[in-house]
């Protein structure tokens, strides 16, 4: 499970960084989203990977670590809001600069 998890994170981050370097607003926003997925999964994994261990105290003898789950929830909400903002900004940049390059002056 650890290997699969690590590979998933690696592929997500790699794709994210690739898209980020495309320097066009839409791929950049998608790239940032992929990176934030990878980061959220990474944060979640920091409570160690288990199966069958609920993160609620007193239910079972051995419980999972609830804190990374709380952190990840916060991070998801913040990341979601930020992505929405970046998307709106990208649209406005497209409208005002008539160009989707992040510098606003690439090839159309």
């Amino acid at each position, binding site marked *: 499970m650890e290997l699969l998890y690590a590979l998933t994170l690696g592929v997500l981050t790699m794709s994210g960084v690739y898209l980020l370097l495309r320097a066009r607003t839409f791929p950049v926003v998608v790239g940032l989203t992929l990176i*934030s997925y990878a980061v959220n999964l990474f944060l979640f994994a*920091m409570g160690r990977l288990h199966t069958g261990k609920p993160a609620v105290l007193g239910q079972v003898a051995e419980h999972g670590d609830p804190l990374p789950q709380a*952190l990840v929830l916060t991070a998801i909400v913040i*990341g979601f*809001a*930020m992505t929405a*903002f970046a998307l709106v*900004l990208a649209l406005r940049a497209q409208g005002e600069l008539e160009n989707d390059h*992040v510098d*606003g002056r690439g090839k159309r």
Partner: protein
Amino acid sequence: MDHLAILPILLPMFAGALLLLSGRASEGFKRSLCLLATLLQLPLAIALMAQASGGLQVYAAGNWMPPFGIVLVVDHLAALLLLVTAVLAIAAVVYAVRGDDLLGANFHALFQFQLMGINGAFLTGDLFNLFVFFEILLIASYALLLHGTGSARIRSGLHYVLLNLFGSALFLIAIGTLYGVTGTLNLTDLSQRVAQLPAPDAPLVGAAAMLLLVVFGLKAAVFPLYFWLPKAYAAATPPVAALFAIMTKVGIYSILRIYTQVFGDTAGPLADLANGWLWPAALLTLVLGTIGALAASTLNGLISYLLVVSVGTLLAGLALDSHDALVGSLYYLIHSTWVCGALFLFAGIISRCRGPRFVGRLVPGPALSRPTLLSGLFFLAAISVIGLPPLSGFIGKLLLLRAAETGVAAGWLYSLLLGSGLVSIIAFSRAGSTLFWRTDPAAAAGGSVDNVRLVAVLALLLCSPLLVVFAGPLLDYLTITVDQLLDPQEYARQVLSMQINTSGGGH
């Protein structure tokens, strides 16, 4: 429990929410509410400063005890920075209510949320909470930066937003790694765990710590991560740019907090981890900022690059990592925040006087309406920000240079800091002579000077001589501040002892 510590966060939060709800209320109401909420920050900061002088104040949110609950810690440093923010914010709001707030929607609400993020970042004693407050101040700053119109603003805003989104991802990776290895995010608890870190875990924690340095370096605009700043700040409206003068200092504050308290002298295998990197980064920031200031073609650009120079200067003080150097850095931090804020507001007044065709561009423009007053103010601000006697910039630089003592480090710092001062004099003389003396008779006369805006600038500028007059008591305060910072064991004892104090009576 005393709830004073959380008020600097709650007050702007509720004021901001109320301002959002009263979207259709009259501008007068919104302006007075915003002004009132900002003015209240000042007595609050002073009260917290008085409280901090009596000892460390720890506020456990929801009465969950550290290290498990989230804590706010009011120490000397946090209280002082709250005061710096409050003074700057009051001047910015007073300036903004004269019309700059109408350039876009919801200026006042965003302003309050920005203050909430800044205050929270200074007060929090928890790494993840620091991330949350960073995001609050960032999302408010994104919207404030785009306040108004213009394609330059959109372009620089896009860079700013995308870079900071990536920075946030790095911040989370660092937080995740630290939590995964040490099992805590409370800063004081973290410092104790790091001190007793088993050797095999050290490289992983070290990597996380360096990632944090990248994130804070991006916020603080340190070389090579400062390229977003001059464009973004030069494009922002004057009150927003003035408030942003404290934003780079939030990055500096985080570097100071993390690398003295968590990865400082007591951090075992990771002691003084960042110092080797901070020193060259600081000097390069100083040099490149100075070159940028010389090459700037607008007044706003010039001031933005001076902000970069001040970041380099501050960081050099942090990298020297001695008691005196930290005292000097903190003094310089207060000075540069207020004076750079005043300069941004002043540049707004000048742009307005010169009319929309010339704004702050450093080319001969129309004759100004009150040249003696404006050029006098410009002269004072320039003297202060460059660091010439008798104003506060001089004392700040003097303290830093004295702290460098002798040796190779002193050689570098003396030559670069004084050289940067000289080049800044040239840049300012050029800018001043173009703005005030080389007038273009053919140009149409610009607008007049607004007195309320002028008062905002004057009030901030007046802080510079005040910093000189009250340098004695201030330096005493800063000495205690740095003592507290450099003694993480005593700090941790006070924060974590809360558990025992209130475990019976907590409710």
